[in-house]
């Protein structure tokens, strides 16, 4: 079966083009900035889905592509809120969440995913919300750093992906 994986790095490149990263000064295009913010979030989100799928099917890239569709925005967001103390985790997971939440590498990625998701929702749905070039580029940098961290995760960040697997699996 042919496959056309959603590549986070390509999404980041697209976001950079839309954000006018290499363009000079001038009047910003708000629509392009909205789409840049959205693509930046999706780059980070799809890097999460990739990591989760690799944990589940480490030896089968084809299965990984199928599994990535099961990872939801809600599951990623909820686990990030557990890890940053914004929401309480189920009691039986609290020892894991508390241990992983001590690692700044985990909490900074979780913070970024929460911030990028909320920005993406504003970019896509809030008609009153402008995104200027500076904020757009800052969010793009945040997404780049998040993708880079997820592509080479330390042990705690890798384990945090397991929490997303648990949350993605219905009880």
């Amino acid at each position, binding site marked *: 079966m042919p496959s056309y994986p959603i590549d986070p790095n390509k999404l980041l490149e697209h976001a950079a083009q839309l954000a006018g990263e290499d363009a000079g000064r001038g009047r910003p295009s708000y*629509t392009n900035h909205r789409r840049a913010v959205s693509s930046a979030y999706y780059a980070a989100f799809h890097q999460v889905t990739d990591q989760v799928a690799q944990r589940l099917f480490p030896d089968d890239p084809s299965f990984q592509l199928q599994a990535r569709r099961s990872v939801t925005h809600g599951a990623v967001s909820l686990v990030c809120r557990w890890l940053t103390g914004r929401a309480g985790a189920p009691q039986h997971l609290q020892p894991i969440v508390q241990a992983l939440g001590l690692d700044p590498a985990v909490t900074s990625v979780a913070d970024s995913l929460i911030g990028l998701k909320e920005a993406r929702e504003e970019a896509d749905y809030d008609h009153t*919300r402008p995104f200027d070039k500076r904020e757009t580029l800052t969010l793009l940098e945040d997404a780049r750093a998040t993708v880079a961290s997820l592509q080479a995760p330390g042990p705690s960040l890798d384990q945090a992906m397991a929490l997303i697997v648990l949350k993605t699996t219905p009880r």
Partner: protein
Amino acid sequence: MAPHGQSFGYALKSSAGPPVVTSAKAIELGLGCGYACAMTTATKLEELRNQLVGKEVAGTAIVDARPELSETLDGEDLTRVRLVLSAPENDTWDLEVVHAARRLVEEEARKLELPNSFIRFSAEGDEDLEDVGI
């Protein structure tokens, strides 16, 4: 319900009368949520602003803060804060600044028992930028 200031007790009042610590400080001192719980939402938002403006995050000054209560697309309460920072030298703020700002705002919002926070970043001088619908 005790009026503002009375729940502090003598230890936090000057002999002249008015409280000598802010509400957030009272909470930080371990005096419980009594004062925050007695505050109106508007007062909490104002207090959040007071706690943020003038501070620095990773070497960048918080020039202004405009918090408001809102909600996410999923209907969860959210404290949206428009944070006006001193302009960076280059196109963007360092991620250190972004992360430190998120942590600070979340921490201060939590002390005041406000919902989870979300920051919109603006540079000093650009804060009144309006969308022109392009």
